């Protein structure tokens, strides 16, 4: 590599990293507790305990659960029903003033699927973990915040690529994993920066890219509404708004018939951004491990309960679905979570050492300049 080429790549590496470092450090630090959000909720007592009941206790039907939810929060409407993680006897409910209310103003809670008893899930609506999540997702700045973080993620990817290119000239005369401890602190950290940077490269790239995709989720959902949903609900354009919804009782059975071999993941009630004004949308997931992250919506007319369509799944919605596990690290048990945290901390070390190396080199460059200035004076 010519020295001019090296200097160019070095320039790209320095500036893409420097610009995104503050944001990446924030993301890495807030992401750390989020890896263990489930465990932390349990530890803080924020995870509701479902009452012990005989195993064969019958479950309420969906409409009865809707009524139980509405009784719990009078004046609000249903937005979503979903599975409760690790709690087969409960469902998660999300309600708000109107169905179209934005997600951060909604209220999330759990319903005992057998009794309809409402159980609050404080960490889903406020507190430390939600604070971390909001910082991590949009820095409390909504869509502009998300897009800024997406841009920082792209810079991070550029920093990784340019760093990999620079790895060659830096390591040409060194064996892999050389750490020169005996010379200077700067050399030691340069070697560690190169070593840790290059071995965590794939992980950092995957988490970076999937983070960018997730940050663009609002745009992807909007595109999906326009493209896939738009054509299917065209006949309903101009239809009067619904004053009464057909009962939710059989929604899951209807969806299972329409999408055989798939299992329900969540239900979007009419009027949310995942449904239409006139439809329930039951999101079905695939039955294999891999396809369980890919969701296919079944649109069900909210007054006749006829299936309007099984919606197409455009590639970008699949990309969004696959991005979630690959970003969260929640798909390989506790050891994976611990590794995720370790790799996260290692990324913090690479970021920190990068800033340190830049500062030291700048100081050194300044010193040479000073010396030269003195010599010519």
């Amino acid at each position: 590599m010519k020295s001019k080429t090296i200097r160019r790549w070095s320039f790209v590496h320095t500036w893409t990293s420097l610009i995104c470092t503050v944001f990446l450090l924030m993301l890495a630090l807030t992401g750390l507790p989020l890896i263990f959000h489930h465990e932390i909720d349990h530890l803080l007592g924020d995870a509701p305990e479902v009452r012990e009941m005989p195993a064969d206790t019958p479950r309420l039907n969906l409409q009865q659960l809707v009524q139980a939810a509405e009784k719990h929060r009078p004046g609000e409407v249903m937005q979503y029903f979903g599975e409760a993680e690790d709690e087969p006897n409960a469902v998660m409910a999300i309600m708000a003033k109107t169905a179209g209310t934005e997600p951060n103003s909604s209220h999330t809670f759990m319903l005992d699927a057998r009794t309809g008893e409402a159980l609050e899930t404080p960490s889903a609506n406020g507190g430390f973990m939600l604070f971390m999540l909001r910082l991590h997702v949009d820095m409390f700045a909504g869509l502009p915040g998300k897009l800024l973080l997406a841009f920082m993620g792209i810079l991070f990817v550029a920093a990784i690529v340019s760093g990999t290119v620079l790895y060659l000239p830096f390591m040409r005369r060194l064996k892999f994993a050389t750490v020169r401890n005996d010379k200077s602190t700067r050399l030691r950290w340069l070697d560690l920066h190169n070593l840790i940077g290059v071995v965590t490269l794939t992980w950092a790239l995957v988490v970076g890219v999937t983070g960018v995709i997730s940050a663009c989720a609002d745009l992807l959902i909007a595109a999906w509404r326009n493209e896939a949903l738009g054509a299917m609900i065209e006949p309903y354009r101009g239809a009067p708004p619904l004053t009464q919804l057909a009962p939710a009782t059989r929604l899951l059975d209807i969806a299972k018939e329409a999408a055989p071999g798939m299992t329900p993941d969540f239900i979007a009630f009419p009027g949310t951004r995942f449904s239409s004004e006139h439809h329930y949308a039951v999101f079905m997931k695939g039955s294999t491990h891999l396809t369980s992250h890919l969701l296919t919506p079944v649109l069900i007319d909210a007054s006749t309960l006829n299936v309007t369509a099984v919606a197409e799944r455009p590639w970008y919605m699949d990309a969004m679905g696959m991005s979630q596990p690959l970003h969260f690290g929640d798909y390989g048990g506790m050891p994976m979570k611990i590794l995720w945290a370790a790799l996260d901390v290692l990324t913090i070390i690479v970021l920190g050492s990068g800033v340190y190396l830049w500062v030291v080199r700048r100081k050194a460059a300044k010193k040479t300049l000073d010396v030269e200035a003195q010599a010519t004076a």
Partner: protein
Amino acid sequence: MKPRQSNFWKVFAVPLVMGLLSAAGLFAALLGDGVWDSLSWIGLGIPALFSLRGLLKKT
């Protein structure tokens, strides 16, 4: 040109293996539980161990 090429492989051979290991690890756990999960721990664990070893080398 020849010595340069060998340089490339000399420098990037091990990192490439690390990259493939991590990628296989990230993908494995998507395919199933049990053995697949264990494969992912190995794939992600080895790069983490190399980093740790570098950090802990005596000064």
